[in-house]
């Protein structure tokens, strides 16, 4: 509706409250690039990505101008590379990472996600080689993201993969210790990974998806918070309603941008992911929304309840606004990317244990958490197992993106810069879970999986 109030509200949301389209992500299937000759496969991968996404950045800029909405990132997600590696077992999978990097450079996107493997039930051809190559791949490339799905509600948790991933995360950190351990910042370990997530580092193009599609990731924690400041005395259900309505407007913007991008690129519209994704910038924090709801500091008692309400209200508002909602859609809690979270962690109010509880009620997992550099691979694996158990039992996606700060301990800080922010090293329990992790095997699928 074109009235002055609405127009000014929209402009204020964009200008003052950090409303933006966080990403437009093109999902591209590389199944037709499979080749038993790895060099040929890499050429096909490069050629297909450049053909499909050559215009992505330009179209993004055109839409930004047309609607006056910032589109912060233009990204690409691809078929889990393990599937291509499977056909050329004698080749080094890192070649695929380098081909993806060349494609990212040509297209001008800031990340390509999909250097991934899906091993929730077990390992098949290509998976082991791909996973073992992850630390090197993330060391020699800058703009490639990787993910491994180690469990699901339907299949249980692959504890052999969990044990391996603890080692891989640690190795990725050690290899990039001279660059603030940036390696593991580009690696996500999932349970119940989704096939159409447009956000990094966990984006990949699932095999059930079409050949090519465009997804939109909206954001706007600042907008939600600003809306709440007008209701200091309202009851919880009243502010749930405010959040819902705000989420509606934010999502509608995503829907509009997605439809327009789909039109201009000649590619089907995938999903709108209506996640509230924070950035380190002032006024763009999810933690501050929780504090606006009435907590003195994020991480204190009451945080889980507030986040549960926020996550749910965001989804309810967003679902009405879009033809297809997908991805993760909820509230993100990446510690290093959220100014309020960083403050709460530094103050010792926000702990890993609290974050773990929060992951049970929001849309992601333990994200961008910096841990002491001497953390053992077994402890990393156990943290992954804990997160996966929460996801498996509650039929939701959970994930772990942990950064072992090599050479640093509790009280130090890692600086990634840009959207990845900076993180204080958070304390971890020292008692060892090694015997549990070294058993390997599988945590069987829970009763919830037997829905048929």
């Amino acid at each position, binding site marked *: 509706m074109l009235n002055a109030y609405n127009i000014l509200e929209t402009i204020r949301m964009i200008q003052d409250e950090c409303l933006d389209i966080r990403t437009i992500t093109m999902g591209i299937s590389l199944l037709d690039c499979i080749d038993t000759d790895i060099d040929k496969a890499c050429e096909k991968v490069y050629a297909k990505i450049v053909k499909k996404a050559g215009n992505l950045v330009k179209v993004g800029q*055109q839409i930004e101008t*047309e609607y006056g909405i910032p589109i912060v990132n233009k990204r690409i997600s691809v078929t889990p590379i393990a599937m291509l590696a499977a056909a050329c077992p004698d080749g080094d999978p890192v070649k695929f990472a380098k081909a993806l990097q060349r494609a990212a450079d040509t297209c001008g996107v800031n990340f390509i996600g999909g250097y991934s493997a899906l091993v929730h039930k077990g390992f098949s051809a290509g998976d082991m080689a791909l996973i073992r190559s992850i630390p090197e791949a993330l060391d020699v490339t800058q703009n490639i993201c990787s993910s491994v799905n180690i469990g699901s509600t339907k299949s249980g948790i692959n504890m052999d993969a969990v044990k391996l991933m603890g080692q891989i995360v640690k190795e990725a950190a050690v290899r990039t210790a001279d660059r603030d351990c940036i390696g593991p910042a580009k690696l996500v370990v999932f349970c119940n990974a989704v096939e159409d997530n447009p956000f990094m580092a966990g984006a990949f193009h699932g095999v059930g998806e079409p050949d090519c599609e465009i997804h939109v990731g909206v954001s706007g924690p600042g907008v939600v918070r600003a809306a709440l400041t007008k209701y200091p005395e309202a009851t919880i259900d009243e502010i749930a309603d405010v959040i819902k309505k705000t989420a509606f407007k934010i999502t509608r913007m995503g829907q509009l941008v997605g439809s327009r991008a789909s039109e201009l690129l000649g590619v089907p519209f995938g999903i709108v992911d209506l996640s509230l994704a924070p950035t380190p910038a002032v006024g763009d924090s999810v933690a501050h929304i929780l504090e606006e709801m009435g907590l003195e500091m994020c991480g204190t008692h009451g945080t889980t309840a507030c986040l549960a309400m926020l996550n749910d209200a965001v989804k309810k508002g967003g679902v009405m606004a879009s033809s297809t909602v997908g991805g993760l859609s909820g509230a993100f809690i990446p510690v290093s990317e959220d100014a309020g979270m960083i403050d709460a962690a530094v103050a010792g109010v926000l702990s890993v244990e609290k974050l773990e509880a929060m992951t049970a009620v929001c849309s992601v997992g333990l994200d961008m958490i910096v841990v002491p550099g001497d953390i053992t691979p077994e402890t990393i694996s156990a943290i992954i197992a804990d997160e996966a158990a929460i996801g498996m039992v509650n039929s939701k996606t959970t994930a772990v993106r942990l950064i072992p700060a090599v050479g640093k301990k509790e009280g130090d800080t890692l600086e990634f810069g840009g959207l990845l922010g900076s993180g204080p090293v958070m304390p971890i329990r020292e008692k060892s879970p090694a015997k549990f992790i070294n058993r390997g095997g599988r945590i069987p699928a829970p009763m919830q999986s037997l829905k048929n």
Partner: protein
Amino acid sequence: MRAVVTVIGKDTVGILHKVSGICAGYNVNVIEVTQSVLQDMFAMIMLVDISAINADFSKLVEKMDFLGKELGLSIHTMHEDIFNSMHTV
């Protein structure tokens, strides 16, 4: 096809003249003009018809942006769809 040109900031003599001058140059017809003062923000909102625009829409946006910087105001030029989509069920 319509767009909305919003001028926000301090009211000055000649804004309407300059903005509609740019529109005329691009063959953009002004349909409606309103002025609002909302929470200390002075805003002049123009609904314009861009269906017969004689250049790329982005050029109009750039020109308006530039005028805004010249006059010390912020001028937003946006396709109407964004407002229609966000504020209607």
